[in-house]
Every structure is written in C-alpha cells, then in structure tokens.
C-alpha cells in the first residue's frame, strides 16, 4: 500500500509559527492531526495566503496527495468533493468523501417539469441517527441531442438550484454549448471518449472543468484516454470504466475493484482518480410493458454493488423512498468510522415531566438503538424514564446473544443510577427482543419485569394502553 506521510515529514513543511489560526495549539499538533487525517491542509491558512510559503505548500500538497485524487464539482457550500481516497479497506482507515448521488434530469422537460423534478431531488430526505440523509447533485442529460436545448436547460437548472451539476452527453457540441453557459458553476463534464478526447479535452482544459474519461469495457483504453487528457492539460479527471448491470455486474465490480486496487495498493498514479458509476444505465434494458419497479430493483442492486466497490459518484434515476433508503443507509454505514464504537453514554434518561409514577424502560447503549428509542418516546410525548445499559455498543438482539446484555448487568445499572429512589413502583419495562432474560432479571434485581414491544415504534401504544402497571 502507498505510504501515508507521518507528522515528522509534514511538520518541516508547515510555517512553524505556531499561529494557532488552524485551531490547534501549535504546528506540531496540526502536523500530527494531518497525519491522522482528522484535519485538512486548507485549515492552515497562512500557507495559502502568504506568498513566502508557496514552495512549502507545493511540496506539502505533493506529500499529502492521496493515491486517489480529490475532485470538486460545483461551487459554494453544496460543492461535492469526491475521491480523495487513502485506503482500500475501511478497516484500515475511515473512508473519506461518501459516494455522491447525482440524480438525472432530462433536458427535454418543460419548465414546470424541470422545477418539479428538481424539487423532488432537493427535498428527498430521511432522518437517520440524528442526521438528515440527502442526495447530492443533478445530472443533466442531453436527451434532446440539440446543443441549444441542452445549453438552455443547463442555464435554467443553474438558476433553479445551487447544487453541483453534471452535464451528460457524448456529443462534444452539446457539451461545448452547455459548458459555456454555466462554466462558472464548475459542472462535471460527461464525457470524453476514445473518439472525442480532443474536442472535449480541450473544452475542459479551456474552462478548467472536471471531466469524466469514459472508456467502457477496457481498462487499457481507459488508461490511454487518461494519459491523453493529462497531456492536453486536464487536471481533474473522473474515471468511468462503464456500468453493466445484471449479467454484466461481475464485470462492473471487477473493473472498479481493479482500478481502485491498482491506484492504492500498486501506486498506479495514472489512474489515481475518483470513479463514476452509472446505475441509471439499467433503464436501457427497461421494456415498455414491464413494471418500472423491476428496473428500479436492478438499479438499487447495481448502485449497492458500486457503493461497496469504491464508486465515488453515482448517476441514479430512481428517487423513491424504497429505492433510495437502502442506498443512503448503505453509504452511511460503510463511511462511518470503523474504530469509533457507535455508542452513547449509559445512564438514566428523563423524558417529559417525570414523576414517581412514571414508567421505567430500559435499552442498550448502541447509538442506533438509543436514538431510535429516544425518537419514539419523544414522538409519543409521554413522561418516562429510560435506563441506558452499557452493552459495549451492541444492539439488544446481538447483545442478548453475545451475553453483553445480561440480567446481572441490568440489575447493576438499576443500582448504579439509583432508579429505585426516583419512582415508587418497582416495574421495569424490557425491550421485546430481551424477553429471554426477563425472568432471570426479576430474580437478580428484585424488580418486576414487563416485556415491551419488539420494536420501539410500539412504545407509544404500549404505554398508552397502560398495561405495564397491571399486576
């Protein structure tokens, strides 16, 4: 694997003034965090602002350049940074820059149609572990095959939304027209091919825009295309080895894996760029009289395989909750920090106006479990105690099976947080998934156990029925 620089290699290239502008105590501390990839070089503002550091900056940028370069699409707060990958496996280091999801808009839509489509992309969201899952960009497709229509649509799109845009057409004239109209938005151009590299390469170089190199079915061809585009002066390149779905999925997975493994493990600098996947390509196989759900199903599978296998940006068509929830969840899961246990602090939580008659429930300290239960209790608007038991960050089901959630541990937690002093009953509501240990817990703790719902979405109804109080 490519060597990642250590703090002692980074430190001599920093200003050495300990100015603290970056928020760290001194330059050494910043160097250490750089080596751990917990801060970005950009935070050292003097390096960029002061001319005298230009040489250091140049060397430092070369030193810390990740084996997969970072490419920025769009401008402003919503700009999408893709690539910048340092490792092949997430167990080596947290994956950076989660796969960006670009949703398609055809240039043939009328004004209302485009506004509606853009709105649905912009507003797609779901709350997951306290954050809003969202989509990232728009891929404008040149369905019209008319440069003027395409350019007008690009302009309209840029007025509608400040999200990053990808201009998609294999016709250089189309790209030239649209790129000219929104070059200041830094769109990603799709694509230069073995046939069009000269015209499209020149276009990207002229406007200094990121460009996709598209050479399906041959990594030799893709390598040649990249080396040619580099010679023209294109600096920000994205690789598209082609997305084949269904029976071709093995090829797709294989191509993406070869590219990423070659750049990170074998230091193949030539193809050290972000990778694009186009699950939208499954719509080419869609048959008119067939239910669109079947094609959507294939799109989810293709996209999922590419999220797992190193795609940095995807072009998608489907925007249903049932298609995009699994995709955004999968992305979120794979890009979490593998070393940090996803756990919350154990303790006794209070919801609403609790008193001596309030119900007491318990759950585990796995963050996902906790936040789900918390949100369900809050939604119910009830007054209740929630005892959070330390299960080393495991969910109820896994913790029971793995003996991390035991009668003894529940009893100890009841004691530790003096729950008996807070309420005048001795009834503890157990998660439905922990029913197995409820009998034992009664014996060990002396509390009466009531088995609650198997999923916390049932808590409001369960508490409302009030049966937990019955003898």
């Amino acid at each position, binding site marked *: 694997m490519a060597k990642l620089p250590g703090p002692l290699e980074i430190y001599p290239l920093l200003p050495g003034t300990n100015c603290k502008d970056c928020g760290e105590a001194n330059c050494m501390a910043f160097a250490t965090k750089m080596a751990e990839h917990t801060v970005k070089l950009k935070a050292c503002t003097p390096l960029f602002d002061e001319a005298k550091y230009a040489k250091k900056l140049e060397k430092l940028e070369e030193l810390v350049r990740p084996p997969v370069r970072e490419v920025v699409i769009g401008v402003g707060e919503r700009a999408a940074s893709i690539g910048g990958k340092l490792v092949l496996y997430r167990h080596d280091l947290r994956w950076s820059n989660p796969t960006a999801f670009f949703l398609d808009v055809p240039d043939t839509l009328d004004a209302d149609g485009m506004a509606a489509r853009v709105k649905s992309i912009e507003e797609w969201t779901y709350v997951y572990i306290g954050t809003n899952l969202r989509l990232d960009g728009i891929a404008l497709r040149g369905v019209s095959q008319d440069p003027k229509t395409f350019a007008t649509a690009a302009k309209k799109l840029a007025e509608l939304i400040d999200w990053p845009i990808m201009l998609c057409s294999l016709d250089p004239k189309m790209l030239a027209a649209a790129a000219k109209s929104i070059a200041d938005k830094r769109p990603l151009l799709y694509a230069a091919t073995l046939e069009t590299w000269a015209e499209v390469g020149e276009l990207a170089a002229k406007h200094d825009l990121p460009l996709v190199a598209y050479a399906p079915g041959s990594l030799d061809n893709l390598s040649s295309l990249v080396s040619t585009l580099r010679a023209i002066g294109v600096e920000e390149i994205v690789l598209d080895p082609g997305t084949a779905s269904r029976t071709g999925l093995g090829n797709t997975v*294989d191509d993406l894996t070869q590219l990423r493994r070659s750049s990170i493990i074998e230091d193949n600098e030539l193809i050290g760029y972000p990778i694009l996947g186009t699950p939208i390509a499954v719509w080419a196989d869609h048959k008119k009289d067939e239910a669109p759900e079947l094609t959507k199903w294939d799109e989810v599978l293709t996209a999922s395989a590419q999220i797992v296998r190193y795609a940095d940006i995807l072009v998608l068509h489907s925007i249903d909750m049932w298609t995009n929830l699994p995709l955004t969840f*999968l992305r979120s899961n794979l890009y979490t920090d593998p070393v940090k246990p996803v756990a919350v602090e154990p303790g006794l939580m209070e919801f609403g106006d609790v008193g001596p008659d309030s119900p007491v429930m318990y759950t585990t300290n796995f963050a996902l479990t906790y936040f789900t239960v918390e949100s369900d209790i809050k939604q119910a608007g009830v007054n209740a105690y929630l005892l959070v038991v330390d299960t080393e960050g495991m969910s109820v089901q896994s913790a029971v099976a793995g003996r991390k959630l035991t009668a003894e541990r529940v009893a100890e937690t009841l004691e530790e947080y003096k729950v008996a002093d807070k309420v005048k009953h001795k009834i503890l509501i157990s998660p439905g998934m922990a029913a197995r240990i409820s009998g034992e817990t009664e014996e060990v703790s002396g509390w009466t156990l009531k088995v609650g719902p198997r999923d916390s979405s049932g808590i409001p109804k369960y508490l409302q029925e009030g049966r937990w109080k019955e003898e």
Partner: protein
Amino acid sequence: MTTDKERTTSLDDLFGDFAELVLENVTIELDELKLGLRPMVQQMAKAAVRPALEMPKSLIPASFKPPLGEYPQAIQEITLGATKGQGGTRGNTVTIGGHTAPAWDLFQSPPKRPPIIAADVFDMPISLAKMVKMHYKEVLDDPAEWAKLVVDKYGADAVTLHLISTDRQLGDTSPNDAAKVIEEVLQAVKVPILIGSAGDPEKDGPVLAKAAEVCEGERTLLCSATVDVYEEIAIAAKKHDQIVLSWTSIDINDQKELNRRLFEWITPEQIVIDPTTAALGYGLEYAFTIMQRMRLAGLLGDKELCFPISSGTTNAWAAREAWMKNPELGPRELRGPIWESVTALALLLAGNDLFMMMHPAAIKTVHDLVDWMKEKQKIKPDEYPDWTTLTIPEGA
C-alpha cells in the same frame, strides 16, 4: 551587484502591476521575494499557455496491469450433506469455500465455490414481519411442508431447521421431540439440512448433540457453537462426523479463540464461521468489515480464520425501515425484500459463502447476483448503452 532600483524595474517589466503590488511591502528581502514569486509566476505562466494547448496528434497509449495479489492460503472447502453413496440420504450435496483470492476479484480468480442459500424453517409458528409471513402462512405449523415449499418453490439450496420450540420459554420441547421433527424434514426434502438451536444456553448443547446423532452420515451443519456453549456440540460433531457453525458476536478475537477451542475435537474440514449479521442501517458495517477481514486473514495464512463464512441474513428484517407500514416510505412489499437483498449483497461482496434467508424475492435476487457475478462476460465497448440520451418513461 545591481541596484535596488534596477531590480524593481526588471521585475516590473516582467510582471507589470502584479509585481508593484507585491513590492509595496518594502521590508521583503529580495531572496524571499524571488522564492515567493516563483510559484506564482509558474501559475501565471501556466494560465498564459493554457489557450495555446499542445494537442496530441493521436491517443497516447497506456496499458493497465491487473493488480494481482499474493495469497498463500486457500479458504477451507466444506461440503454440506451426503448422498446415499456417501453414507447419507441427500439427493445432492453443496460445497462452499475453497477461495484463493478476495471475494469476487474475478481478475485474479473467480469464486471457487459460488455462495449458496439456506432458507430458514422453524419448528413452531413464530412472529414474522407481515411481508415475510404472507409467503409462509400455509406452512407455519408444519416444518416438513415448510421445507418443501422453500426448496420446490423458492429454490433454496439447503434448509436450516431452527428448533426454537426447545427453548425453555417457548415450549421446552425435548431433544427427542426435536429429533422427530428433524426426521420429518429429512424425509420431506432431498437437499442438505442444517440444524439450528434455539439460543437457550441450557438446551442448545443437548439438542444439537441429539441432532448430530439423528443426522448420522448426513454431514449436517450444527448451528451453533458459541463461546458459552461449545464443548458438547464439538464432541457430538466429532462423534457423528458433522460440521459446526462457530458463531461469535462481531469480535474477530473471539472468533479465533472459539475456533482454537473447537480444534481440540474437530478438524478444519468441520468448521464454518459466523461473525453475526446486523441489518442494513443497524450495524451492517460491523458484519461487513469483520467478514472482509476474516477472508483476507484466511487468505494471508491465518489458520484460525480460513473458513467459509455464514450469515443470518434474515436479521435484515430487524430494521424497522424493512417492515414498518408507512406510506411515506413506499410499499413495504418492495421495501422489505430489497432490504434483505441489499444486506445480502453487501455481505456477498465482503466474502460471505452461506446465506440464511427468508423472503422469496430476496432469495431469488441473491441467486441472480451470484449467477451474474460468478464469471466475467465478454462485453464489447459498443454494447454499453448510451444512458445520456435514454428516454425513461415519465413517472418511473
């Protein structure tokens, strides 16, 4: 030695207003100035040459070398089930593992034995997500019929019979009762049978020991030995030549430890490992990463981890997004099975070999995925569609 004025003039000539601006700060030493200016000059120069591109006359050829790795150890190959000729009663056997490269690195070597699916069958009616239950409601109280259904209609490669009624809290049926159910299921289908215990620490040992005895000659998989309950199961597996599922809880060191203990009784040909599957959105990444690490460790020579991997993929249904009735989330008829499918797909790519699953659409999907990925196809460049001009039906 030139004078300061001359220097200023010469720089001025070179850079015009730009240099003047910099030179306003008179305290800058000349060397520093040069140092500071050089990269900027380079940048300006680069910008200046940009319009006059040196256009290559033709494509500059480059080649790509497949990034082959070195993997000194193969993953153990394990055969489940035994035919009449092999001392059992199964119509066929299934073999998993044997890999010599990371999962699905087709450029290095395709999977030696493509992954398989064992459908879950329970020995008593249990609570299931509605979208799962609807496919099993006719057979919920008949494990033999249930087994036939998953094999004949849903295409399962094997059947996992979960003896949950042996749980002290779910009926406390005896090992002998369990033996009868096992025999019924063995009669009902010809595919290999896997036996699952209830997860009751008191009962699992005796129940699986009895199952090992009843399945003499069948090469069944006893699910599961854990760090708490393993000895009785390992002894029975040794005595009756069965295979053991070594099940741990998302901890690679526990997995190694348990396997070491199992080695006291059984051979490497008798172990399948399961690091626990968590649902998509609810900890899937732990299962994913630990499977990937185990497969790599096995390939790189770790004798305690070079085993085929199993996943309780049905756990995907623990995610409320899979089963909850909520119109805003779209039809759960699709949401549920896609949840199980995507959970499986992630683990398939991590290197899982044996999937224990339930929803028929998810079972079919995983079979399709394995089929689509098991070897490289010849796809010509012009067979890749131009999706930029596709007309996609409105509303789709």
